[in-house]
């Protein structure tokens, strides 16, 4: 026994065996880390592309609504011009006739010519018929209603469109599930944050000019549209482009604005232009991407039995066991440099809804001191309802050979109980993380 105790043979073998085991474990750790990292890259890209694509769709919708705003302005201008045109023409014609004087002592031959010339060609009567027909069948107002319907539809519809795009893109890029907040049917944060402005914003009355100086650009825009329309007009003759009325057509439109502008001609304006947490949530989307990654719990822990037990929160939920999570957030954005150069002044609608300058971008999950009006846990829960159902059905997540419902459920609870409550970034009212770090 004493001899055995003193025997040193095999000492190096034991040492090298231990070394080899450590090396082997290093290899396993590297392999496991590689597996997780590759999945993590995929799910990161999935989250970012899903969020960016969603914001792209929404920005695109904002631009289409801005286009429609310009269309409304033009139609309002034409509408008001024609409503006022004939009465003013009649007043002008009557004035010409009243000043007609054909004696040698008169210098008013022009007035006589205008009076009888118009009478002979029947313009006062024919234009009256036109005008009455126009009043009785005002398609311009119908067009304004149609445009308004289109804008309101798209305002609500963009949320579905964007989420559909987000899910497609996320799934294509390696996620098995894309959860998005706000859900499209959330009436506060789902639709695009747009609301009707005053109808007077579609015309050129002094009122909007006084209350909103940026409307000054309307004069330029409207004049460009008006002259373009007139130049393109194919009828000849027409009172829009010929005769004395031409000189005052813009004035007619201007004068008629307070009286004639239909309520449906009101443009849609951005309601969420501030940087409050409330407004930022209305302009942005949270995306939670999940990728099934096999038995992570087994891979990461069971390979190294000598490792101590991992951190286990009181709820008993472990770290992600069946997949990898990633998050991203995007917003649609109107950069100041996209304002038309003709806008020299800033005003109430600085995020210009008469110009297609909106685009999408990735943004930090939470900005320093940002206070979202909805708890992160609530957002995640709301997003899970639609997203998980679609992942299990449309994207066939459960068909993945590595999918395990128990581990998947664990991972959902992990996000709900361990991750999202900490996303406020505060501990005892002190900020612990800022910006992208979150």
């Amino acid at each position, binding site marked *: 026994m004493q001899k055995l105790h003193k025997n040193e043979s095999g000492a190096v073998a034991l040492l090298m065996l231990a070394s080899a085991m450590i090396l082997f474990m290093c*290899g396993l750790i590297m392999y496991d880390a590689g597996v997780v990292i590759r999945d993590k*890259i995929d799910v990161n890209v999935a989250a970012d592309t899903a969020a960016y694509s969603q914001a792209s769709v929404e920005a695109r919708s904002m631009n289409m609504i801005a286009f429609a705003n310009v269309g409304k302005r033009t139609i309002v201008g034409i509408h008001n011009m024609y409503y006022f045109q004939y009465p003013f023409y009649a007043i002008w014609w009557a004035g010409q006739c009243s000043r007609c004087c054909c004696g040698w002592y008169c210098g008013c031959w022009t007035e006589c010519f205008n009076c009888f010339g118009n009478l002979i060609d029947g313009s006062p009567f024919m234009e009256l018929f036109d005008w009455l027909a126009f009043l009785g069948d005002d398609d311009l107002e119908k067009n304004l209603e149609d445009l308004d319907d289109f804008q309101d539809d798209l305002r609500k519809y963009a949320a579905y469109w964007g989420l559909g795009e987000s899910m497609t893109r996320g799934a294509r890029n390696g996620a098995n599930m894309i959860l998005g907040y706000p859900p499209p049917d959330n009436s506060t944060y789902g639709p695009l944050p747009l609301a009707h402005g005053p109808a007077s914003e579609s015309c050129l009355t002094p009122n909007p000019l006084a209350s909103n100086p940026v409307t000054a650009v309307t004069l330029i825009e409207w004049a460009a549209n008006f002259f373009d329309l007139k130049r393109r007009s194919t009828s000849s003759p027409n009172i829009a482009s010929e005769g004395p009325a031409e000189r005052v057509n813009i004035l007619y439109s201007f004068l008629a604005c307070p009286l004639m502008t239909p309520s449906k001609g009101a443009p849609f304006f951005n309601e969420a232009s501030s940087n409050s947490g409330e407004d930022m949530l209305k302009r942005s989307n949270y995306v939670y991407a999940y990728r099934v990654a096999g038995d992570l719990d087994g891979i990461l822990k069971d390979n190294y039995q000598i490792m101590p037990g991992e951190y286990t929160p009181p709820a008993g939920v472990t770290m992600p066991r069946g997949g990898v999570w990633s998050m991203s957030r995007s917003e649609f954005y109107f950069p100041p440099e996209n304002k038309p150069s003709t806008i020299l002044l800033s005003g109430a609608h600085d995020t210009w809804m008469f110009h297609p300058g909106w685009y999408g971008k990735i943004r930090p999950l939470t900005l320093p001191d940002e206070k979202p009006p909805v708890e992160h846990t609530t957002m995640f829960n709301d997003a899970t309802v639609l997203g998980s159902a679609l992942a299990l059905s449309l994207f066939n997540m459960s068909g993945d050979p590595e999918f395990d419902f128990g581990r998947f459920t664990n991972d959902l609870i992990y996000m709900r109980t361990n991750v999202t409550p900490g996303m406020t970034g505060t501990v005892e009212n002190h900020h612990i993380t800022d910006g992208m770090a979150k």
Partner: protein
Amino acid sequence: MSNRFLRKFCASEDAAVITEFVILLPVFVITFVAIVNLNKLEVAGSRVKFVAATQMWDDAMAIHDNDLPSIPPLSRGLPQLAGANSLSAISNHASPQGDMPAQIKNVGLVAGGSRLEAAGAGVWAGGGTTAYSAGSDFAEDMIKDTTINPLSFTTSWPLFVFNVAVPYSYVGTRQASALGTRYGLVTGESSRSVTAGNYGTVNMDATYDVLVSPTSVGGSFVNQLIISGFSRLAAEDSPCLNSVLKLSNDGDYGC
């Protein structure tokens, strides 16, 4: 003699360490080489993903940062064309999942432009009502970007897609495909082969795609003219507005 030698040999502790070392060295070396090869594979696997993702974002940002003339119309100009390109891109670069829903979505984009795509997205996002169902011709016309606008043929640069000739000037003048609403998928991809010992040669590849954001639109005078162009086309295309433009003595205001 031999027995004595054998006993002595067995009792001898000379060179015991070197013997053990020789026995274990191959194990040690094999483990070490395996780790190196594993590292090569891991780095390559992550690298292809990184390169593909970087290429995709670089492309997307280049489109975002450039102005209208720099956008290749064939790949990003019209929703139809973008849809066709997306179909092709997805067919050629399969992803682990999500191909079929994406193809269904893109077929809608090719067939019906933005309108059908929007309707389709609403359906498979699990809810929502179908917009544009009120029978509003003018509202539909706002996003009907799959028909030819017979006006403003200012160039002779036709694009032939599905036997439909689309003038180059069409890009940017028609509402839905015009400035700020253009549509397009950007793809990034990377692949490489790695030879790593007993693992042999492993082929690795990665493909990602993203929907580009509307291009940044500067406030130039040209861009404002394009907006005016929209208004003009809205008026010219609408039977109602067109009849107003032709205001004359014929009294025809039918839509």
